């Protein structure tokens, strides 16, 4: 009823009467929502998952959630992901800050008079309140591949055309990279890459971790069995089992501006798993690759292409020692 009213209000406010200015969209939680065909005032409730891709798509965002951390952006609110990848700031854009992602300020959103609200599945508990304000669409974050999720977002905001252009460019570069890999290394699945980190006293291995794991998969590299068999995104292994992730390459992420500089990262490994760099093939042979975490986590073709370039330089085109050689 409310959507109808809002739709009605929208129609009345425009002089051109267009009944098909809205369309039906079924969101990630099965809500059937009447959304504008091409949204004009979007509020995003997740920085690195929604705001970053929306900026890449050139969609009109009027509000976004943000985070506050003393060490970043002088302690002013920043948009996670979009800040790191595109240097988008609240001050330097027309995007208003609508609170933290876990509990956004619904009244502040209402004040922006949005015509579409993008809601992440894990913060959808205020869905009823949000949809009283504007058509709201829940997008599932972890359960699908990065590209599928991106396509859903582009579809919801009515920017599929732009998405397909970006996608075509990316696919072109990916195909080139794969061809080069084949030429230089032969079958890419013969090369294994493990993503693992020691953080907060845990030895954690990742199956899915933003563009870092997505590009590895697209390029056809393999991973150690223990990672391949993870049911979910990640696993906390016992440090005693560190040899189970032995691979040609080891990838970890750092976040210098979050106070996790690369040097600390290695110190964490040393503290939890003494002798790790002797027992693991990759660090022993200087084949441990460190990647900046925050830009990598922003859902975008830009970050995927950056990671692709990193892997080309650090795995495909360099001399390295294979596992067991």
């Amino acid at each position, binding site marked *: 009823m409310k959507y109808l009213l809002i739709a009605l209000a929208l129609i009345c406010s425009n002089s051109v009467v267009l009944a098909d200015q809205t369309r039906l969209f079924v969101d990630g939680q099965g809500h059937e929502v009447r959304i504008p065909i091409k949204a004009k005032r979007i509020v995003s409730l997740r920085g690195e998952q929604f705001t970053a891709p929306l900026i890449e798509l050139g969609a009109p965002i009027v509000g976004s959630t943000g985070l506050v951390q003393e060490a970043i952006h002088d302690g002013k609110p920043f948009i996670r992901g979009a800040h790191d990848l595109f240097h988008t700031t609240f001050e330097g854009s027309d995007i208003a800050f609508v*609170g933290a992602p876990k*509990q956004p300020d619904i009244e502040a959103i*209402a004040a922006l008079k949005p015509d579409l609200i993008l809601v992440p599945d*894990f913060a959808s*508990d205020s869905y*009823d*309140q949000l949809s009283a304000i504007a058509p709201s669409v829940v997008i*599932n974050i972890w359960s699908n591949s990065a590209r599928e999720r991106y396509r859903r977002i582009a579809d919801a905001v009515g920017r599929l055309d732009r998405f397909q252009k970006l996608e075509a460019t990316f696919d072109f570069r990916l195909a080139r990279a794969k061809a080069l890999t084949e030429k230089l290394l032969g079958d890419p699945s013969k090369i294994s890459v493990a993503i693992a980190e020691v953080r907060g006293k845990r030895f954690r291995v990742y199956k899915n971790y933003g563009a870092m794991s997505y590009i590895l998969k697209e390029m056809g590299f393999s991973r150690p069995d223990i990672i391949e068999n993870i049911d979910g995104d990640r696993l906390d292994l016992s440090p005693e089992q560190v040899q189970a992730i032995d691979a040609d390459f080891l990838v970890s992420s750092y976040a210098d501006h979050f106070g996790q500089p690369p040097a600390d990262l290695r110190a964490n490994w040393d503290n939890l798993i003494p002798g790790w760099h002797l027992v693991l093939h990759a660090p022993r042979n200087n084949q441990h690759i460190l990647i900046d975490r925050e830009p990598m986590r922003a859902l975008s073709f830009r970050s995927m292409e950056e990671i692709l370039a990193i892997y080309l330089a650090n795995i495909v085109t360099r001399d390295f020692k294979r596992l067991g050689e």
Partner: protein
Amino acid sequence: MSKLIYRSKYGTISFSLERAVPLALVFLLVCLFVLFVLSLALGSYDLSLSHLWQALFAAPEGETSTTILWDLRLPRFLASLLVGMMLGLSGAILQGVTRNPLADPSLVGVSQGASLAVVALIVLWPSAPLHLRPIIGFAGALLAASLVQWIAAGKSSSASLRFILVGVGISATISACTNAILTYGQINHAAAALSWLAGSVHTASWGECLVLMFGLAVLSPCLVWAVRPLSGLRFGPELATGLGLHLKRDRSLLIALAVALAALAVSMTGPLGFIGLIAAQLVHRLLRVGTGSHLLLSALVGGVLVALADLVGRTALAPIQLPAGLISAAIGAPIFIALIFRNAGPKHL
């Protein structure tokens, strides 16, 4: 001293009202009224007084101001008031029954049971409709509380200690399960569960308010009944028996009442930890009053505390929203400490 006499089918109860009680009552009611007005007027969406008036009495269809007032601000205020009252009552009853000032709804497993049930629901069935959460949470709270009761039941020699220790053990086991689910479940589900666990009224709707009001209305005769056994228990088990109380039965009934109140509150908002403990203790330390007044004042203090916490939480750092559970601890704790400095408090606890 004035005297308030209440007649019910359980007999006539008269409780002496110290002069301070009407004063405290008036003060709390004024506080509530001020909070009510402020809760309607303040928020990130600018509503001028004339708009507010219009939205309140005319409620024009399709206007954003109507949505803000009727769908957001009013149900939030009402829900926080009711939840705070119920938690305050629950804490007061539990502290009376166990004669332990640290007792609150988390001791009987209510918060943990509700948390485990809701977290399991979110993680195992992520697409479950939102309105299932309170129902499942309520069931979980009752289940956990009955488990504590069932295991603690037995020889009556050291009933209070046994009850407290079993409560601690069971609550800990349940929260370990919750923690395990949070740690080893998928990150996105864990994130959703965590925001519920923070304890907040931001999802309050009219439906929830109606359920809470209905619950409170149904339980209020029980509250009137509770006054007599609670006053008896104040003097210790021996004297209470001497006063003709059916100790074992009354204690179970009182605990059941506290559980029902807290379970209803927690199932709507998530665990608001500190309220039960602090509301009852604040009243204790401020005024030495009879049991009936103590219950009434504890309820009001709880209500004021949560309503104030929610108002501060949503406006102080706007658009950053701080959950009511967090603010109520942040506001309540210093007030409480100040009171410790001011007042010795009664010795009987």
